[in-house]
């Protein structure tokens, strides 16, 4: 044996010596493991293979995403065809990919599949081709193709093909890995951006203020970003502006609209003191620019700790609840549609409700609260919420909110909807307003002034008006207040006749008037089918149409207007109240 026989094959130009293909595999494995730059790695692998098999040139073809085209992504030696695009079944490479098998074509001129165009354009002469598919299990990625042995007399053989097949399989694995790594990096990038968005969102919520500040809020997002928001900030005159809203939909677009709405409110809320007008301005702003189909339900209000009065406007939002100091609940139904649906007519503000908390607490909350409860039983969701409020009634406001929300959020990841609650607690300010003799007002007994039962007929209205006027004057109302009460009762009776009974009826309505705790209360009861109180809304005053005014009159002149839960024997019970003296 001569020394030449045992010598390794001649070193390819500029390259290192590779003793056998196991070593080549190991080299390539290291390359693939070390690099996440897929193009570079594939190019280096191709160079090693081409050298090892002693071919004139080599090319990597990869299938595009939908598998219809093969594109040359890397090329060594011979002619540079990087960027060449073939049909997925075109050429010898296409056939190899489609059949998912390696091929040796020793004389391409005898193979009709040979794609001869490149030779014609470059003047290169392809004599033979060695081709192996890049695939992992059934997933086809492309193929590696080598052309012409460098030694013109030599031909590709079965050993060459086996080596190429092994190498292309490992290149395919590396390619898949790199693609997966790329997807993970992208996923991570998106997650970080969402986290950043969530952080900005949290910064839009107001910082909690220590007690005895009377307004507190709580937001538990179901996802990273939330469509819910709340805010509160003191105004220069000592009143406190607050709001709470819920953007339709979830995810990033809801979060963006939330950010816009919350910012508008905070910015305008310092100069526009009337919540109804403020919501109307924001409505117009959102209508002008919001994405179609997205809207915001929102309650905006102003609370005056000096008087315990809250002024609020409700745009299509879940009715806020007032938990009176004495224990009862009152719901304040929405009087306007959500923001972002129709621009307000003629610059009119949204209708406002004014009420006195008298030491009670106002709760504004999103439907995540009531819907969270709906799941755990068949009781009315709002009733469940009231139970939770009652259970924690004695606690300081901030702790109370935590306690009220805790049962809704049993554990991580179980929330379906964001939970947001805001509380305006008048109990502290009320004590400061009336440090002496708080008992007197509460002790005052309610006195019944009038109790009449008449058929629901238009010709009884005159008599009812006269009776209401008498009763009002008797308990000390001014002429103007008495006249307003007459309007409210008359319109309420009309609603009973026209809407509850659907026309004049011999069925009855009962009016009771009583005086209690500095208020005159009017209770109107009918025996018609229970109506959907959410549908009873005042009309839009910008809309110059006859009709639909009555409910607006009632809300305009009375301090409180509420449909109480219907009595056991059915019908409807409307309670209206106005402060006197």
């Amino acid at each position, binding site marked *: 044996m001569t020394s030449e026989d045992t010598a390794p094959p001649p070193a390819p130009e500029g390259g290192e010596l590779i003793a056998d293909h196991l070593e080549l595999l190991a080299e390539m494995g290291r390359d693939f493991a070390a690099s996440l730059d897929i193009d570079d790695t594939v190019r280096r692998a191709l160079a090693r293979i081409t050298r090892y098999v002693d071919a004139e040139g080599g090319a990597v073809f990869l299938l595009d995403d939908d598998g219809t085209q093969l594109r040359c992504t890397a090329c060594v030696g011979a002619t540079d065809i990087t960027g060449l695009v073939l049909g997925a079944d075109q050429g010898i490479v296409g056939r190899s990919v489609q059949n998912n098998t390696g091929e040796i074509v020793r004389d391409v001129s005898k193979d009709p599949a040979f794609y001869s165009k490149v030779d014609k354009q470059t003047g290169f002469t392809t004599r033979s081709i060695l081709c192996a598919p890049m695939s992992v299990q059934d997933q086809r990625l492309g193929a590696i193709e080598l052309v012409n042995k460098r030694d013109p007399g030599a031909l590709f053989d079965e050993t060459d093909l086996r080596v190429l097949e092994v190498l292309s399989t490992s290149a395919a694995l590396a390619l898949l890995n790199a693609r997966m790594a790329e997807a993970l990096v992208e996923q991570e990038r998106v997650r970080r951006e969402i986290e950043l968005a969530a952080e900005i969102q949290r910064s839009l919520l107001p910082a909690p203020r220590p007690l005895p500040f009377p307004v507190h809020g709580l937001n538990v997002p179901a996802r990273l970003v939330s469509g819910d928001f709340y805010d509160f900030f003191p105004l220069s005159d000592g009143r406190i502006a607050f709001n709470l809203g819920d953007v339709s939909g979830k995810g990033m677009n809801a979060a963006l609209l939330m950010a816009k709405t919350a910012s508008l409110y905070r910015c305008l809320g310092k100069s526009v003191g009337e919540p109804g007008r403020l919501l109307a301005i924001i409505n117009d702003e959102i209508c002008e620019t919001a994405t179609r189909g997205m809207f915001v339900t929102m309650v905006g209000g102003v609370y005056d700790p000096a008087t315990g009065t809250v002024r609020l406007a409700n745009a299509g939002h879940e009715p806020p609840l007032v938990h009176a100091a004495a224990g009862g609940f009152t719901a304040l139904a929405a009087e306007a549609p959500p923001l972002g649906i129709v621009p307000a007519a003629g610059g009119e503000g949204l209708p406002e409700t004014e009420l006195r908390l008298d030491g009670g607490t106002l709760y504004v909350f999103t439907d995540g609260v009531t819907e969270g409860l709906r799941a755990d039983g068949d009781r009315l969701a709002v009733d469940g919420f009231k139970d939770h409020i009652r259970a924690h009634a004695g606690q300081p406001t901030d702790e109370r909110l935590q306690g009220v929300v805790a049962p809704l959020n049993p554990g991580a990841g179980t929330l379906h909807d964001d939970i947001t609650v805001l509380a305006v607690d008048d109990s502290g300010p009320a004590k400061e307003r009336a440090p002496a003799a708080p008992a007197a007002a509460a002790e005052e007994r309610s006195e019944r002034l009038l109790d009449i039962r008449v058929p629901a007929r238009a010709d009884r*209205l005159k008599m009812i008006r006269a009776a209401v006027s008498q009763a009002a004057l008797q308990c000390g109302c001014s002429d103007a207040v008495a006249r307003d009460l007459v309007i409210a009762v008359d319109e309420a009776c009309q609603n009973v006749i026209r809407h509850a009974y659907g026309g004049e009826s011999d069925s009855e309505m009962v009016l009771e008037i009583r005086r209690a705790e500095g208020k005159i209360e009017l209770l109107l009861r009918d025996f018609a089918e229970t109506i959907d109180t959410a549908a009873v809304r005042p009309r839009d005053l910008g809309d110059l149409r006859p009709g639909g005014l009555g409910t607006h009159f009632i809300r305009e002149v009375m301090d409180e207007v509420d449909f109480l839960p219907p009595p056991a024997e059915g019908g409807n019970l409307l309670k209206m109240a106005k402060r006197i003296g």
Partner: protein
Amino acid sequence: MKHSVKEDSGSLVVGFEGDVDLQNSPQARKVLLEAVGRRQPVLVDLSSVSYIDSSGIACLVESLQAARKAGTAFALVAVSDSALRVLQLARLDTVFTIYGSLADGLAQAG
């Protein structure tokens, strides 16, 4: 409720007296729309109206709209305190032309 329709200096003066409420607003509506239909300026005298409800207001709005369509003048005159309160509640006190007295109305509308 009583009503009267008189012609004065080229205008029709429609007067109501007493309560315009659910019971008699259909009648008030008929009277008003007939007056507007005569294509003369219409002055509605509300000085003797002791009470008007939302259905009465609705008649006034409907008549105003009919008059605008026909291009004839339509105004309220000498609106009683209780009627004015209801117009204010409806935010219609600026929508209607209102004259302090019938004489003013006749001078302006004629």
